[in-house]
């Protein structure tokens, strides 16, 4: 059975600049998301968007200061969180949503899926949710065969975990001892169906991995430092050739599955509790202030800098032209 990952973490174990970096990255992701939703309301971007607000810590906790450019990721359906943490320029992501040539797809349009930045190990994503389970064992096998210590991280939600390929993937990864880290962002809901309604588990999804002989654990995904610790261990194992790890990060989404989703299938009290008491940014900020790692003003300055950065990125993305119609005929074959 999967263990519940717990660890006593002292803020003093981290450098102050890294703590501020985690804060900054989480704020960047949230502000990116909020401004994207604003652009939707302004009619500039379609509503096909799955907001990642409320789970920023899962991505920052597993990527920032841990993964290198040469490490691969397959992001999940709330994957802007991971793309931003992996360093994909904000203007490029906005460009994909706006369909301008600034986007990573040079105007084809993308967003939830299909944004890619191979130079930063972001190898794209499947429109058919969960098909990344198959692809990630290939990237990991490739790293192993080429003799590198590159790690492949596979993000997915509890909904995607229902897909059959997860089991094919776990079987391969365990069998060939592949350097894969599976990170399940379990927010309790696929769209409206709950995790319990759609999964047969002993208790946790991570228990499945245990059945494949893959070390697994369940962790509070909204604690950015706890995520850092657990993922560092998993990445280290992968680099040492000790094989895959499965991490189930428990979290909750603040918004509906898609923009426009009434989100009336969740218990209001539960949602409010997550928003008020378990918001990853709020909690981390509180911890930083309580331990006097920085002042309220320091963090406000970070907020402002990020806000400025977001506006600049949107400007670059919006000012770039739409592609010529014949763009659709470019890039099919190598």
């Amino acid at each position, binding site marked *: 059975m999967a263990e519940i990952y717990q660890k006593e973490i002292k803020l003093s174990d981290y450098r102050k600049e890294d703590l501020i970096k985690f804060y900054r990255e989480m704020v960047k992701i949230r502000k990116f998301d909020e401004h994207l939703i604003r652009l939707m309301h302004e009619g500039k971007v379609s509503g096909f968007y799955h907001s990642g607000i409320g789970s920023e810590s899962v991505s920052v906790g597993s990527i920032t200061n841990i993964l290198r450019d040469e490490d691969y990721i397959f992001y999940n359906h709330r994957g802007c969180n991971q793309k931003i943490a992996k360093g994909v320029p904000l203007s490029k992501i906005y460009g994909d949503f706006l369909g301008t040539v600034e986007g990573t*797809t040079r105007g084809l349009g993308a967003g939830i899926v299909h944004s890619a*930045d191979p130079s930063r190990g972001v190898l794209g994503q499947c429109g058919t949710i969960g098909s990344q389970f198959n692809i990630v064992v290939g990237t990991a096998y490739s790293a192993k*065969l080429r003799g590198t210590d590159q790690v492949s991280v596979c993000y997915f939600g509890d909904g995607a975990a229902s897909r059959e390929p997860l089991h094919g993937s776990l079987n391969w990864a365990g069998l060939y001892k592949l350097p894969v880290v599976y990170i399940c962002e379990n927010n309790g809901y696929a769209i409206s169906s709950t995790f319990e309604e759609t999964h047969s588990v002993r208790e946790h999804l991570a228990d499945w991995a245990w059945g494949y002989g893959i070390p697994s654990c369940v962790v509070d995904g909204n604690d950015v430092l706890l995520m850092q610790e657990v993922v560092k261990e998993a990445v280290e194992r992968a680099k040492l050739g000790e094989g895959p790890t499965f991490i189930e990060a428990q979290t909750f989404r603040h918004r509906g599955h898609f923009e426009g989703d009434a989100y009336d299938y969740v218990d209001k009290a539960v949602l409010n509790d997550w928003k008020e008491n378990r918001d990853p940014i709020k909690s981390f900020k509180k911890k930083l202030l309580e331990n006097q790692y920085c002042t309220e003003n320091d963090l406000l300055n970070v907020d402002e800098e990020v806000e400025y950065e977001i506006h600049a990125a949107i400007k670059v993305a919006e000012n770039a032209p739409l592609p010529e119609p014949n763009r659709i005929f*470019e*890039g099919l074959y190598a």
Partner: protein
Amino acid sequence: MGTAVKVKTITMREAIIEALVEEMERDPSTVLFGEDVGKFGGINAITKGLYEKFGGQRVFDTPIAETTIVGAALGMAITGLRPIPELQFGDFVGIAFDEVFNKLGKWRYMHGGQMEVPVTLRLPVGIAGGAGPEHSQSPQALFMHAPGIHIAIPSTPADAKGLLKTAIRDNNAVLFFEHKLLYGMKGDVPEEEYLIPLGKADVKRVGTDVTIIATALQVHTALNAANTLAKDGIEAEVIDPRTLAPLDMDTILASVRKTGRVLIVHEEPKTGGCGAEIAAQIAEKALFDLHAPIKRIGSPDVPIAQSIYLEQFYRPSENQIIEVVKELLEY
């Protein structure tokens, strides 16, 4: 092949093994995998000796998991390897349909052309030995509908070798369909190294009265029929497209304009088979060069029976071809 080329006579199985060995020796980033392809050498004995030659890292047995086999190939391809996966039966492409139809040909395009997908997926196909409805099909035409994928379907040892070598070197996904009844068929193969480009049809027999376009095993059925027809003074031109994507319509149209009569023969069902697309393109581009309606022969639109007695009636026959050619000549 030119007359000065030194040749040897080998089976298509041997030709495919030669292609695999040569390309795997040439490029250390190649990796071959599938069900029972390692020590066992593949159920069709196409990968015999490769495990011993290249080791268990580059030639490995996989679990029975077609979606993972093809998905993993994609992952390898976009990170610097050149995978050559095998599906044990071409019919199993249905299990990996998402990976083949939605991913292999689209990954590069939908991510803005930033990656290359040099996958060569080998798929043994065709009615052979009473294998039944899910081990006998020829599903290649389905993928003419999937942009970004190349489709090769050789009919001779020489073509199989030259096309497979090109497919492996190509930086795009290639589906390589091999008819199981051709594995043991012998033919002349050049001694020297050679490549055959994708998208170049081959005129297997020159003729003036009718154009027969055929693929895989049916190329041989068509050639046999043509030889019989020649005894009656009818000269059929037999064209093997060799690849369905890209499709060499120039060679096909040149022949059609010469003969004015067309028959397309393939083993997949007539409805929606490759003949449907070829016929449509001929109609679009050369309708007024035709003296007779375009004819097609495919297998009937019903699942392939398991019975080894019944399965022969699915396969287009020499007699059917002769009959239709004679009908075409009545116009």
